[in-house]
């Protein structure tokens, strides 16, 4: 490598690093909430009831947004429209710093704004008012919106509804062109190199990576990295979650649920099989040496450089790196998600139907002076014309209508992707947490512009067309099997373990052991793998895993009893 390119690499790394700091500051957390949700949907013909109070009295709602974000510009188009038509203006406070610390201060001082994003800590502290009566009395649209989900929204601890979930209520045709969940990702270039093979199993996957790395030891002057594993802070699924998917099980977090009974899988044989494979791959030099010491920024910088051939991750988690690759014009270095399993006879179950995003969305605080007005406002905003305004914008300005189908011109598409433009023209911060229609509107248009099929096709790059044509798919989502209907309890990861309980302590312990031993086992010489693994299993045996499993099973049973229709 010449000195010049080294400097270039270094300065671009620094640039990326600082960029990712900036990005992290500007709302990296968004991803967190869009986690399970970005997909779907809902129709919503039902919510057309008019809410005509007559005159408009201005009022102010203070809002706490539990994630980092930026204030919209004072003359933001959408907030202005809300103020003109409903009288409501929002006084938003965004999270700065650590959420637990912030909540601790809020709870200690009982200092709550009117509306707060959902959080189990706040629920446990009694910071929200029960909403069920308010909704019954004042909010017919919300009632209709949540009709099918009413029981699920009840707090398992006392049966009240405190939070209006923001995602997961869907109706109508669900258009989905973007898979946001977990998968084994592989660079499109690798697939192209080997003439678009079918990749179903873990072994096939690593074979491809091995062959490609042998053929191209360097990409753009930097050493090729075969496989990357992120295990940093709470972003630890890259290391922990793969085994459950490899046996054809959906994402239940730390447990696998069979016939309504949950057990942890961290110490099971099918988990061992995966980590052993990784250990072998490490011995072959396919796994990044730095993989367990890097932080999220370094991980993103590596993905953005285009040298990483594959990893296991959730799509939303590295979305920004793909955007960066696209901006650099390296479309062939972006990724395809593959639903891998151990053997071809297993059916993959990576993609799931959207679930109700419990513990997220808005709750009204005990300090709110006029809860009735607030619930009426939320009831107005769930109506279809408002939902269109939130998701698509203003007709003629932000989108066009052709033969009843919503479309965007290229300029409008570029605008919509521009963060600065959004601050002045979108009510993104509020809409992220408001109850929302997902899927399709009553006129058949998709609620999410990116999921509108025509829009998706129009925005597709030629290289992506080539890949999709080679496999005969319409979008990258088609790589995954159609998800079956969700089991009633699903997903187990959303179960609230209750702060400070034995179950929660056990889960923390388990997490700690996994973080400590799995990297050790993977990096060990293959001959030593079994020794490390046995020590790890022994340590898990000492942690109070039973308390954790019991709590999950108790809640699964509760959900089956209470959520079944």
């Amino acid at each position: 490598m010449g000195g010049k390119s080294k400097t270039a690499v270094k300065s671009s790394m620094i640039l990326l690093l600082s960029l990712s700091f900036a990005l992290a500051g500007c709302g990296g957390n968004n991803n967190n909430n869009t986690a399970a949700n970005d997909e779907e949907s809902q129709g919503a013909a039902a919510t057309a009831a008019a809410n005509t109070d007559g005159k408009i009295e201005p009022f102010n709602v203070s809002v706490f947004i539990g994630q980092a974000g930026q204030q919209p510009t004072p003359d933001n188009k959408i907030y202005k429209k809300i103020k003109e038509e409903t009288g409501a203006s929002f006084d938003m406070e965004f999270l700065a710093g650590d959420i637990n610390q912030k909540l601790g201060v809020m709870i200690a001082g009982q200092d709550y704004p009117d509306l707060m994003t959902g959080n189990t800590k706040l629920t446990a502290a009694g910071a929200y008012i029960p909403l069920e009566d308010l909704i019954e009395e004042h909010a017919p649209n919300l009632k209709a919106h949540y009709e099918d989900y009413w029981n699920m929204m009840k707090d398992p601890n006392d049966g009240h509804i405190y939070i209006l979930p923001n995602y997961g209520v869907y109706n109508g045709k669900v258009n989905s062109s973007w898979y946001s969940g977990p998968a084994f990702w592989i660079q499109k270039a690798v697939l192209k190199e080997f003439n678009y093979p079918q990749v179903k199993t873990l072994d096939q996957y690593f074979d491809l990576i091995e062959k490609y790395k042998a053929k191209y030891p360097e990409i753009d002057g930097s050493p090729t990295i075969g496989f990357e594993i992120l295990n940093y802070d709470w972003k630890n699924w890259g290391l922990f979650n793969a085994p459950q998917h490899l046996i054809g099980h959906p994402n239940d977090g730390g447990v696998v649920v069979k016939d309504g009974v949950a057990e942890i899988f961290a110490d099971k044989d099918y988990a061992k099989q995966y980590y052993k494979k990784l250990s072998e791959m490490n011995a072959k030099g396919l796994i990044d040496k730095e993989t367990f010491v890097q932080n999220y920024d370094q991980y993103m910088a590596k993905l953005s450089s285009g040298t990483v051939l594959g990893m296991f991750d959730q799509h939303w988690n590295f979305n920004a790196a793909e955007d960066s690759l696209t901006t650099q014009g390296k479309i062939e270095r972006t990724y395809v998600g593959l639903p891998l399993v151990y053997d071809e006879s297993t059916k993959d179950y990576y993609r799931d139907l959207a679930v109700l995003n419990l513990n997220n969305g808005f709750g009204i605080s005990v300090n709110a002076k006029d809860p009735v007005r607030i619930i009426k406002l939320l009831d107005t905003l769930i109506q279809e014309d408002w939902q269109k305004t939130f998701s698509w914008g203003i007709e003629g300005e932000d989108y066009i209508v052709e033969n009843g189908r919503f479309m965007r011109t290229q300029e409008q598409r570029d605008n919509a992707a521009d963060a600065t433009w959004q601050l002045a023209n979108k009510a993104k911060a509020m809409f992220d947490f408001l109850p929302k229609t997902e899927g399709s509107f009553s006129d058949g248009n998709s609620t999410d512009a990116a999921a509108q099929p025509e829009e998706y096709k129009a925005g597709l790059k030629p290289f992506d067309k080539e890949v999709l044509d080679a496999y005969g798919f319409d979008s990258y989502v088609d790589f995954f099997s159609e998800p079956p209907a969700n089991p009633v309890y699903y997903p187990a990861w959303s179960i609230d373990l209750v702060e400070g309980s034995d179950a929660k302590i056990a889960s923390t312990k388990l997490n700690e052991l996994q973080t400590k031993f799995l990297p050790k086992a993977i990096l060990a010489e293959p001959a030593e793998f079994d020794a490390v693994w046995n020590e790890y299993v022994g340590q898990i045996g000492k942690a109070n895993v039973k308390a954790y499993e019991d709590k999950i099973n108790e809640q699964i049973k509760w959900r089956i009893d209470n959520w079944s229709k």
Partner: protein
Amino acid sequence: MAETLEIENVVRHPKKNKRKKKQPITWSLIKSQNQLIWMSVPLMLYIILFAYVPVWGWTMAFQNYRPGKSFSEQEWVGLKQFRFLFTDDNFLRVLRNTLAMGIINLILGFVTAIVLALLLNEIKKVFWKRTVQTISYLPHFLSWIIVTGIVATSLSINDGIVNIVLMKLHIIDEPILWLSEGKYFWGIVGASHVWKEVGWNTIIYLAAIASIDPALYEAAEIDGANRYKKMWYVTLPGIKATIVILLIMSIGHVLEAGFEVQYLLGNGLVVDWSETIDIFVLKYGLAQGNYSLATAGGIFKTVVSVTLLLMANWTAKKLGEERLL
């Protein structure tokens, strides 16, 4: 005879002081100093409000504290939180790490700051002195999140400056993965601390050095002292009082080995060396909503710190040095 007299004179000195101290507090004295007393009232209030009233919160450590409930509704659990803290397998390890890193930071921070101050003092060209000083204290203003980012980047095996330099100097044959080995971790933390704080810590010593009477240097020079002798016999004794006071104060903070560095640089591979009391308390206290445990951890740290502080102070007194209390 003359000698004994002199000794008597010397021992009378403290007596004099004592008598002065014992001056009775009378109304007339208070009246004559009433402005001073009034001036101290806001400060007293401030300290009571912000340093003593919060101690009330320590009661949380003996409860199963649940936020949102009033004091009388809390459940009292005695020493349960402390028992959890001290009986957990990890606690000893965590305590060891905290102490080790605290002591490393203390010693490294001290030695480097004093050495840098001495060296800076020898630079005669004001421009260079200022430049070096400014460059060395600027990192103090960076937050740890940025510093750890820089540290992680420079220790990286691809294009990390540390590995490149060591390779070029032929000290190592292939890049070392610094952050994956527990044995390096304490050193890395210590070095990062030095890099970030050395310039800042130097300022106070430079100020102390500036107050040394130049006549002493002239006298030493006339007696034939060279640069090093002057450093050793004039400058160092001149700032001894400052050194001792600062040392006592920092010994009280030895359990504050830090949280951010270890949290941000730590990973699964080095967790046995990187986890400090603060991280442990965060994991099992705050992150679990168990504020009582977090408080118990805080109390433990405070008690140990106060004990260390008093011990250091007592030792200093025995050695006849300046002291804090």
